[in-house]
């Protein structure tokens, strides 16, 4: 039995050593609770870094790529002067970034905030964008969003109007005008000349339709919603039923109607590819925001909503 063990087993040594040990252990344990290790500043540049600025490091890999970008040479071919210049620029930039952080620019400056938001979204989208979709996936996406890939339609039409109670015929009532218009439609459908019908019933060109072919959106813009809806139903050579609008009774004569048509997948594959990636990016951004919101503590003032 060693002497140390004997000390703890027999009196009177035990009566001294055990309390002394308790004091020692007590101080040691209390020391762990009362004191904490001080953060040690880095005094040498750690491996993998090229410089330390206020304890923040510039990565060697970043330095290499920056040298290659700025000099358009490989890192090995860049001269010491060029490398020094690039490093100086990177240190200057780091100093400005650190100063920006101290000035709390992300909280106070709109441009910094929006760039940071874009940066986060880009980072979140990076893994999604790295994935190359297969043709089957693109086709499935195309089928789901087919409406987006329609070629716009075009129309060549005439719009005749019979003003009701206007200066041409002040005594004409609305019912008379509608009856005249119905008769005019009948005659036009029977092959009567447009000019004849216009003169005979007192129709005029409304001025809302262009002389030549117009794209659908332009037709809608010029005719107005009510007449455009009627026009979309007409085929080549058809004459519409009389349509009552704010300025009188209209008759539409469709000369040529090129209906909108869905583009073939192969024709719009590039667009589908871009839209697929945009949709994936948006999904990633939304999921990221959903996660951030679930982890955040957001308090909204009474009377406000988001």
């Amino acid at each position: 039995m060693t002497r140390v063990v004997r000390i703890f087993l027999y009196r009177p040594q035990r009566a001294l050593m055990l309390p002394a040990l308790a004091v020692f252990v007590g101080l040691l344990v209390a020391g762990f609770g009362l004191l904490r290790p001080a953060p040690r500043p880095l005094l040498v540049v750690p491996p993998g870094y090229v410089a330390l600025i206020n304890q923040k490091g510039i990565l060697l890999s970043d330095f290499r790529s920056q040298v290659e970008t700025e000099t358009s040479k490989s890192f090995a071919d860049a001269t010491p002067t060029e490398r020094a210049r690039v490093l100086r620029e990177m240190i200057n930039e780091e100093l400005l970034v650190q100063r920006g952080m101290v000035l709390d620019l992300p909280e106070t400056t709109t441009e910094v905030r929006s760039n940071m938001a874009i940066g986060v979204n880009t980072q979140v989208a990076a893994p999604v964008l790295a994935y190359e979709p297969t043709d089957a996936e693109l086709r499935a996406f195309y089928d789901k969003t087919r409406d987006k890939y329609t070629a716009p339609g075009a129309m060549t039409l005439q719009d005749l109007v019979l003003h009701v109670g206007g200066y041409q015929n002040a005594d004409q009532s609305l019912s008379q005008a509608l009856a005249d218009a119905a008769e005019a439609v009948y005659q036009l459908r029977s092959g009567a000349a447009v000019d004849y019908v216009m003169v005979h019933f007192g129709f005029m060109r409304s001025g809302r339709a262009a002389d030549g072919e117009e794209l659908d959106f332009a037709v809608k813009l010029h005719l107005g919603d009510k007449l455009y809806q009627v026009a979309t139903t007409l085929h080549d050579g058809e004459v519409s039923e009389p349509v009552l609008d704010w300025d009188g009774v209209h008759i539409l004569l469709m000369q040529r109607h090129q209906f909108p048509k869905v583009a073939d997948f192969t024709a719009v594959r590039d667009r589908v590819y871009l839209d697929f990636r945009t949709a994936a990016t948006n999904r990633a951004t939304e999921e990221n925001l959903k996660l951030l919101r679930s982890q955040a503590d957001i308090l909204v003032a009474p009377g406000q909503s988001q």
Partner: protein
Amino acid sequence: MKALLRIMLCLLVLSGGAAVAQERSVSYSTWIVSGNMITLRFLLPVAQAQRLLGVAVPVLTTGKLEEYLLQHLSVQSAGGECPAIDQGFDLGRVDPLAVGPDLYGFEIFFRCADPRNLVLRNSALFERIPAHVNLARIQMRGRSVEQIFTGQHRELALPESGAIAAAGLGSYLRLGFLHVISTADRWCLLLGLLLLVRRRRELGYLMLALVCGYLVSTLASVSDRVLPRTSLVEAFVGLLIALLGALITQRETRNPRVAIAWPGLLLLLAIVFALLRAPWAALALLGGSALSAGFLMLSRDFEARATLWPFLVAVFAFLDGFGLAAALPPAQLPEATQLRILFGFNLGALLFETLFVALGIGGWLLLRARRLQIPRGLLNDVGAAGLCGLGSFWMLSRL
């Protein structure tokens, strides 16, 4: 024993409001003089700012502090008052800085029409916290020196030529002196120590323990290897005060249960804090429990042969020596400057403690010389109860 416990409980209850020790209040400023422009960076710990303004919302605290600092920080020159300039955008004259979660930071630029006879003025917080200290760094003509602003020293005139002088050792010595004067727990502890002194040579041990404690603490602080958990250190000082009380009680009553009851209570508290998921407080209490148990047993069995209590004094001095060290990291001072500051501060504390003990012993001897009978037994009983009560209160309120 029961009477003693009753007194102790009464004191514990009554001590509530009066026993709160004054917490150290330190802020930091850097004044950079460059031509006619003086840049001031001011840092204030969050806890102090909230206590000062009574606002817990950071935005409101920042806004109020900006106004407050503009009114209390200024630069005077030969051309009159140097105005704080508008920093553009929507910043105004005080730019809030992001300097970490525990500090509020502000930057002000003063532009002087005539940059001669510069006088820096800092009266922030002194009217509300008289013991407040601002650790200042002045950068001028390529040199950087440390200065302090206190309630009594709110102005600093900068020399026209030559180097600006750093704050002398005396300034820090005064801080240390005031640090012990202004804290009730230190007074209590010193009074407790006076009750323990019985022989002349014990006074020597007491002083030696204080010197050793402060010395080790200064060296540990300057080594930059450890930092104190301030509130826990202050709680442990409370624990030491209560332990002194328990020691006196054990000596007076010769009751062996003291060596079990007090450590047992601490062990129970350690378990409670561990359950409350406060690991560092639990560790401190666990260590305090083992220390108390061992120390009380040793004192009981070996009192006749050795004077052990100065060991507790050394532990106290070691912890007290971290008083200013805990406040230094935000100032980012060089090692030599830290050593000078801490040496002066701890020396000041030591001087006051020496003076206190000398006055106490002198008073005691004077009373004895005049043949005045002091009921030593009553004094010890009441003193021990007071130490246990107040010490426990400080320990629990700071954990």
